[in-house]
Structure formats: C-alpha cells, structure tokens
C-alpha cells in the first residue's frame, strides 16, 4: 500500500488506474480537470488510451463504446457537463453497459458557478436522462473515500451491468488529504460475460442495444431492469451510521456537507447531548432502512445539504411521518461553519425551532 497526500480529484484518477481502467474519455471543465490532466499523463504509458473528446456528449458515447466491449473505462465532468452526458447514460442503462461517471459538482442551475454544491442530487438519483432507470450513485466524504468508492464503482458497475456515478463536489475534488493507495483484486468473474462484444468468432452474434419494438418486449425489459434495481438495493446499500441508543436527534448529510455536520454533532456530544449521525454513502440505492429504524423510535431528524432541499425528500419518504424532519440548506456560493449547524441542532433540542 502506498501512502500519499493527494487532491480528491487525483485520488479518483489513481483509483481508476488501480481498478484496471485503461480508457478515459473526457472534456475539460472546472473543477474536475485534475482527473483528465492526471490520466492524460499516465494512461498512454500503461498501454491505455486518453481521448479528449470534442464534447461531453461524445465522451459519454465513447465510454458507451468501450464499455460495450467489456473494457473498464471512465469519464468525468462537473454539473453542466453531466447534464450533457445524460443522453448517453440513459442509453448505457438501457443497454446495460457498465462504465463509471464522475461528477465533481459545481453549482447551477445553468452556468451557475464553480463553487461546491450538492444541487445534482435529484439528477443523479433519479436516473437523470429519459426513461425508467437508475444508476448507482456513491457519495464520498473524504479523499480516501474518493479512492475507495471509485474502485467500488467499477466493481458494482461490472457486477450489475449498470452505469455507476461518483457524486462529489468542488471541495472534495480540490482539497488534499492523506491517502492509502491500495490495490483491489482485478478480473473478478461475475458470471455473465456472454454479452460482451468481441467479434462473432466461433459463436452467435451479440447485440448490445436498448431498442425493443416487439409487442410487450420493452415492458419486459423495463421490469427486468426494475428487478435488477431491487437486487442492487437489497445488496449494495451503504451508509455510515453512528446513532447512540438514547439519541435525541439524528443529523443526516452526505459528502462534504456531512463533514461539516459531523463537527457540529461532535461538539453537541462534547456538551453532553446525545446526537446521532447518519451519512448515506450510496445515494442510490438510498439507505431508507436506516431511516426507518430512526422513525421507529420517533427520533427527530435534521437533514443538512448544500442545496435548497433534495435528499431531505428521500428522508421524508423513508420515515413516512414517523419522525419530525427538519432541514438546513446552504445553496451554492456559501459554506456553513460547523457552529451554524450546531446552533440549528441546539434549536431543535431545545424545542425552539422556527
């Protein structure tokens, strides 16, 4: 294991290489350009390919092409660029083509700005493009997790033949932290390689496609995808749960918002309050069961997000009114201090919430 001190973006790029990803297709956009910059230097020497595409649309379709041949490949971008990639992501989901897409979120809507934001939660967790589908969405909160979850994204993508997305933001992409660069096991056989396009040598031709015109075929395909989504939800949901038995409040947040919220939770605990922390790591599948457990006790929940309220809707769907759910949002251009969130926690604990 190699120890280093890396930017979050570089950690993702290094993780991709460790995961055996030799093909990268992308287009420059702030604040993720460290990823293509790093890989353009490294991949050619490894016998891989770095292609700077003419557009975000082209780069996602290059990913689709490489993925259809069973090769591990990646593209990365930031919010407006991810919007452009949605067409290709929908086709990849429909054709069940693996591939990893990294979104180092900036702010929107529109051109927005380049500051950190979590405004793409809805877009990421609801599919994002047209049609009835989901992608696996992993939300790292540290540079180490940028590395670890990128490797997981490749594994899950291959295992389930589904596009996987890393949803981070400008803050996580640009900051440096210590990193353990571990090497995963490669070449795992998931028992379903018979779809991969290699040329029809000594076998029947294969077709990787999403067009189903036969009577009832598309409905059947959609139900099959839904079954797969269910399987993923059952087996791959991940969350970091730190909730004391006697918790008076549970704070929930993901990604960089969770780091700030965690500091506030720790301060409240130091002052003798029993406050829990529930951090979803997979945003889709959403760790609804963990919230159901909180709801069973009726413990109030405070959701903290760097947007005007997106994940909080999933929290409310999960608890079905069993817990009071409060929200504390910070739209782009402003980052809260832990003290601000601490104050909000105190308001709720004292019953003074507006």
């Amino acid at each position, binding site marked *: 294991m190699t120890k280093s001190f890396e930017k979050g973006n570089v950690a993702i790029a290094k993780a991709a290489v460790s995961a055996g990803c030799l093909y990268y297709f992308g287009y420059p956009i702030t604040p993720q350009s460290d990823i293509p910059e790093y890989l353009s230097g490294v991949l050619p020497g490894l016998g891989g390919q770095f292609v700077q595409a003419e557009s975000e649309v*082209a780069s996602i379709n290059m990913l689709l092409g*490489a993925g259809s*041949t069973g090769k591990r490949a990646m593209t990365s971008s930031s919010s407006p660029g991810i919007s452009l990639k949605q067409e290709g992501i929908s086709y990849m989901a429909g054709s069940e083509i693996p591939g990893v897409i990294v979104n180092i979120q900036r702010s929107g809507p529109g051109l927005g700005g380049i500051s950190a934001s979590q405004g793409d939660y809805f877009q990421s967790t609801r599919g994002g493009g047209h049609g009835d589908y989901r992608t696996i969405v992993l939300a790292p909160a540290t540079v180490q997790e940028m590395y670890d979850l990128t490797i997981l994204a490749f594994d899950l993508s291959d295992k389930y033949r589904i596009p996987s997305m890393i949803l981070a933001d400008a803050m996580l992409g640009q900051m440096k932290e210590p990193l353990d660069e571990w090497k995963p096991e490669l070449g795992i056989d998931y028992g379903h390689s018979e779809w991969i396009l290699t*040329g029809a040598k000594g076998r029947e031709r294969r077709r990787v496609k999403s067009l189903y015109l036969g009577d009832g075929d598309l409905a059947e395909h959609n139900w099959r995808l839904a079954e797969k989504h269910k399987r993923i939800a059952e087996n791959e949901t991940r969350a970091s749960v730190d909730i004391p038995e006697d918790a008076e409040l549970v704070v929930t947040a993901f990604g960089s918002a969770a780091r700030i919220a965690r500091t506030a939770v720790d301060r409240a605990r130091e002052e003798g309050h029993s406050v829990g922390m529930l951090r979803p790591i997979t945003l889709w599948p959403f760790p609804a069961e963990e919230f159901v457990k909180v709801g069973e006790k009726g413990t109030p929940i405070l959701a903290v997000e760097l947007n005007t309220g997106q994940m909080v809707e999933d929290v409310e769907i999960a608890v079905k009114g069993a817990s009071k759910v409060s929200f504390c949002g910070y739209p782009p251009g402003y980052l809260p201090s832990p003290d601000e969130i601490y104050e909000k926690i105190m308001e709720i604990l004292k019953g003074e919430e507006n």
Partner: protein
Amino acid sequence: MKQVFGRPESLVDVASHFCPGCHHGTIHRLVAEAIDHYGVREETIGAASVGCSVFMYDYFDIDVVESPHGRSPAVATGVKRSNPEKFVLLYQGDGDLAAIGTAEIIHAANRGEPLTVIFVNNTVYGMTGGQMAPTTMLGQRTTTSPYGREFSQDGYPIKITEMLAQLEGVAYAARVAVDTPAHLAKAKKAIFAAFEAQVEKRGMGMVEILSSCPTNWGMNAIEANKRIETEMIPYFPLGVFKERKGSDFF
C-alpha cells in the same frame, strides 16, 4: 455445378423490413461482400445508428452496439480505442450523420480514427416519416418542407463528403450511387476502399451513397431510381474526393 452468385456469408438470411425499392438492402449486400472479402466478420464490431439504418443489427451477422442518434462515430471511437485489433463498422443515414451527429463525425474524422463509415444519403428522414433532412434538395417537398425546401429558409443541402475530405485524418472519402449497374460496380469498389483504409490503419474511410427512399419521396421504385440521376447526382457529384495511400498522417 459452379455457384456464381449467392448470399454473402455476413448477411443474415431473413426478410428485411425495408420498403419496396429502398436501396438499404442493396447497400447492405455490398457492405456484406466487403466484410467477406476482407475476412473480418469475426473481428467486426458494428456501431448502429438511429433511423432505418439501426436494423443493421438484424441483417449483418456481426456483433453490434447500438448508438444514440448521431453518436456512432463517438461510440465507435470508444470501441476502436479500447480494441484496436477489431474492425469497426459504422452505417449512418443523412439525418444521423449530417444533422444531429455532425460534431461526432467531424471530430472522429479529424482524429483520424481508423473507422469505416457507410453514409446513406437519401435526402430525407426515412423512419420518422419523411421530414426534411440536411441533404434534402432545394424545392423538395417533405412533411416539414411542404412548400419545398427554400434556401433562404433552410440553407442548401449539405455536401458532407467534400467537407470531410478536407480533414487530414480522412484516408478515403468518396461519393457513389446505387441506381445503375455501372454505379453499383463503382460503389462496391469505393466500399472496399473504405474497408482497406481501416484494415491498413491509414485513417477513416468513408463512402457517401446516394440512394432512394420511394416511400417518402412519393414515387415508385423506378421513378425514385431515376431521380438519383436527374436530381441528386447533378448536385451531389460522384467521385473520390480523398485517397491517401500512405500512412503519413500517423
């Protein structure tokens, strides 16, 4: 008895969905002959496009990945870059290549991706029911140019092969037609040359094929065939626009 004519091995023996008089079937046959001739069937990955052309995955006995509309040059780039030893075949219509996918074809060509592109130009959107294409002729009536294409409104029909021939990454670019036996022979030669450009790793090989769409032109097969000669060829000249034999680009 010696067999002198038969179905190419790479063409699947099924009834096609193409309309009577449509040239896609003819073009499919020529492309299949090229696949057989160069012995690449088992190494080929096709990148299907959107439109009537998408059903190449039903008719060619090869592996095929479907692409979003216009994006097959990008999809094919991803396939070829990660599998440089494979033969990658594109089959695009005029709406796909010359309208929604203009950026993808130009940049794939400019990068010199060693791909073989079959570009079927029938001056109309076929599958969606005969709307105006970027290649629709001036004065041609379509379902979205009911008064005839007017240059002040819609511009001139785009001559994409001449444009692509300007790019250094293109090793071979030609325009052919499939309306007469003599043109068919030339079309076959051009398709073979576009295959050779990839086999010899010289860059992109592309052939534009002027073809008919009797259904959406409101003509019978014979009238449609004649239109290629009387209206299309005078505006879209046939010929080889680019042929670079050496691999000096790389």
